[in-house]
């Protein structure tokens, strides 16, 4: 009951699965993007810009950002649960982290939108 504060209840198995799925998405995306950068020595603005203006790249990047936010939320929630014992303080910290992550998600979407 108390755990469902901020209406974000943490169900162990669900968190476990989300953490792994998001990890795989981010690993594939990061390794792919690093590979792209390594293959294009002296990458020009036009190339970089056209990469991110493609529909599939935008979708992949938004998937990455979404994974990042979910992954970070579960990770930080776990850290706070382990180290921040006072309930009120932990709830406040969790609230701000959640706020920041949601804001960052929309920021990321807007960045891609403008490309």
């Amino acid at each position: 009951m108390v755990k469902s504060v901020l209406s974000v209840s943490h169900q162990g198995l669900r968190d476990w699965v989300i953490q792994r799925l998001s990890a795989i998405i981010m690993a594939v995306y990061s390794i792919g993007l690093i590979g792209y950068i390594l293959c294009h020595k002296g990458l020009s603005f036009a190339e970089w810009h056209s990469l991110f203006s493609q529909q599939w790249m935008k979708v992949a990047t938004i998937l990455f950002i979404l994974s990042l936010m979910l992954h970070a939320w579960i990770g930080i929630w776990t850290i706070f649960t382990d180290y921040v014992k006072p309930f009120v303080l932990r709830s406040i910290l969790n609230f701000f982290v959640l706020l920041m992550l949601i804001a960052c998600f929309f920021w990321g979407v807007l960045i891609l939108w403008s490309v």
Partner: protein
Amino acid sequence: MKQPRPKNLNLFTIHFPLPAIVSILHRISGAILFILIPFILLGLQFSLTDTGYETLGNWVDNVCVKFIIWLFLIPFIFHLVAGIRHLLSDIHIGDTLKMGRSMAVLTFIISALLVILAGVWLW
């Protein structure tokens, strides 16, 4: 009655098992990466505008900036490598005690190699 038993209270001769060190560093690097999220987004936003891309390019030419980028690549690389190790343990690859230790050592070696390579690539 006192029984003589071996004691070792010298903290410099005992340490956490390696897999535990990998685990805590995975957590610490994750927390650092969390703090870096807004900066990465800022970088992405900059890099996708014409003038911003040029500005970023000029910045990266600076040795100090290069070093800072390289510094921030360390938690990224370590988190990625340790995360892959974690996923492998989930599917029971290297989850025995003996293999767990070797995998922990391997995590450090691969991370260190990648960090060095990243440095070489940056310069």
